[in-house]
């Protein structure tokens, strides 16, 4: 665990670590360049850990379940999933919405908080970004799994085919393609650009040749010159500026998949904002779900302080309240608009075949969240961890309820039917979660999970703060 000894000429910061002026600092007191660097880099450069091996092996096994079930669905047909007419959209769509939502926190933290000059982002943005990329990537798989003929998925891309036909641009599914693809690409750029200086740091820390070459080439020969920094910071700021509207647009577009239809229960103008809020909600829940164990495991207590959890909990609470408002408005509009179909479906949601999921959703997203008003809960990492975990469950049920319950009681009673997931649906959901954590494990082992340069900047500012 301890950082390897380094030949470093002494500098007075190491001699006299400064106590942070305020008790409630973003960083724990007494941090210096060397210590932060050591703490962060340790997780990457130090020798292999048994815990890590066990974990990644376990998650890899679960990912296999994912790949097996996907192969099976491709081979036999989507009919093995719990879908039918009228409920032609099933688990895969619910999973897309859920994963994309999770994929939103990262960019939000990195971009919006950066623009808002929220210093506390620095300790968590890096792995939150990684989380975003992996979640968005997995979310990008599910629409393809959902297709009846996945091998023709590329027809949704505009290219000069010799059929002479093009995508149908009025379809929100085409918008999805562009939104999700853009989101994934921009997230990767954002993440990588932020990573370059730290890769350089790792290059210069590492003693083994292969590590030097590996990080050396990844950081593109970063020298950290003032001019580099100037342009780097400008690009980074622009990315943040672009990512902020992007992150809002992505989940709005996802929401439009539903909102532009005429299905009672889908057709609702409140969907875009309420989906975005839901995204932040579940996203932050996932960040906490990951940050808590990460922090304990790599002893990052001095980088990721209770204040971080406190702030994240507050954002969660805020997002949660918007989501609750969304629920309320849905019912209010159904009543106020006097649309009998919308009214009927919203009542069936609460009382019909999908009621259990509906009540789980309310319990987790409405009741449980209220505990975040209590500072005690926000400050208690493991309590918060539990809440976050349940919020993830609640948010999945929300997607499930919206996607499956709405069409099951639409316009013509003669066509009504219900549909639930089969084992394949659950296999793919669980498998995708396993795959996600498999990727996270790879990331924390190979790349700095916290932004070194930004934390150093923070250290310097804290010193000046006296």
């Amino acid at each position: 665990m301890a950082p390897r000894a380094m030949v470093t000429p002494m500098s007075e910061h190491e001699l006299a670590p400064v106590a942070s002026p305020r008790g409630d600092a973003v960083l724990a007191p007494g941090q210096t360049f060397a210590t932060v660097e050591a703490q962060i880099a340790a997780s990457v450069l130090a020798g292999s850990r048994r815990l890590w091996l066990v974990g990644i092996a376990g998650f890899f096994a679960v990912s296999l379940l994912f790949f097996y079930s996907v192969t099976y669905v491709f081979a036999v047909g989507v009919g093995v999933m719990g879908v039918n007419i009228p409920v032609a959209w099933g688990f895969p769509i619910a999973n897309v919405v859920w994963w994309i939502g999770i994929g939103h926190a990262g960019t939000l933290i990195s971009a919006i908080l950066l623009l808002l000059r929220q210093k506390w982002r620095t300790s968590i943005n890096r792995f939150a970004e990684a989380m975003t990329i992996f979640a968005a990537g997995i979310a990008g798989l599910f629409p393809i799994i959902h297709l009846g003929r996945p091998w023709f998925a590329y027809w949704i891309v505009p290219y000069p085919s010799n059929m002479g036909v093009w995508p149908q641009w009025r379809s929100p599914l085409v918008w999805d393609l562009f939104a999700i693809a853009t989101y994934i690409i921009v997230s990767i750029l954002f993440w990588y650009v932020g990573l370059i200086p730290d890769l350089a740091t790792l290059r210069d820390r590492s003693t083994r040749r292969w590590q030097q070459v590996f990080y050396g080439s990844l950081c593109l020969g970063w020298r950290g010159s003032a001019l580099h920094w100037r342009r780097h910071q400008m690009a980074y700021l622009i990315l943040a500026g672009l990512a902020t509207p992007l992150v809002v647009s992505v989940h709005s577009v996802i929401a439009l998949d539903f909102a532009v239809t005429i299905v009672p229960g889908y057709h609702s103008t409140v969907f875009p904002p309420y989906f975005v809020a839901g995204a932040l909600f579940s996203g932050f829940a996932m960040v906490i779900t990951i940050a808590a164990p990460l922090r304990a495991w790599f002893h990052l207590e001095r980088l990721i302080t209770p204040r971080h959890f406190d702030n994240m909990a507050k954002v969660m609470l805020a997002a949660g309240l918007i989501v609750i408002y969304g629920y309320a408005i849905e019912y209010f509009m159904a009543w106020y608009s006097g649309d009998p179909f919308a009214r009927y479906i919203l009542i069936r949601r609460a009382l019909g075949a999908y009621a259990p999921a509906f009540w789980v959703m309310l319990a987790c997203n409405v009741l449980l969240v209220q505990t975040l008003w209590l500072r005690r809960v926000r400050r208690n990492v493991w309590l918060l961890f539990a809440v976050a975990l349940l919020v993830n469950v609640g948010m999945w049920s929300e997607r499930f309820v919206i996607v499956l319950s709405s069409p099951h009681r639409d316009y013509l009673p003669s066509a009504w039917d219900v549909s639930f997931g089969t084992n394949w649906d659950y296999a793919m959901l669980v498998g995708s979660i396993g795959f996600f954590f498999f990727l996270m494990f790879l990331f924390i082992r190979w790349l700095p999970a916290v932004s070194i340069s930004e934390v150093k900047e923070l250290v310097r500012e804290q010193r000046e703060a006296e």
Partner: protein
Amino acid sequence: MTQPERSDIYGLIAMFDTADALLACARRTRAAGYRKVEGYTPFPVAGLSEALGQRDSRVAWIAFLGAAASGMAGYALQYWTAVIDYPIVSGGKPFNSWPAFLPVTFELAVLGGALAAVLGMLVLNGLPRLHHPVFDAEQFGFATRNRFFMLIEAEDANFDPEAIQDFFVRCGAREVSEVSA
């Protein structure tokens, strides 16, 4: 001034302990008449590049142009395919259903802007550049960790090792060394 060409030297580099020391020194370089100066820090030090008289904000313009271009191209693509090349009645909506074309236009604008910004940054910074003379400088490995460096290139109009040496020392450099080209 008249100085013999020192082609075997890339420049003189000085190591500082703190960002403030570096910054202070940087502020004096221009007064001392040095132009080809560069500072190296493990994290962005506010004011440094201004102090060194760097005013390059082309990245912003590149990003803006990229966004505008790809956004317009995006709408043009939709218009051409849906209205000119193969108009098909879909849902009784007009061929140019512009409201429905906006999401894709927007996403493409963002994509274009982001790509332009990053590529622009890399190109302007001359990256990737895995090999660079400055890497030969002693202790330079700490430039990305906890030390701060300043380099005056041999190209500089009034490059004079001895003068620069004691200029750096006066600035409080911990050590000064020569970087061979």
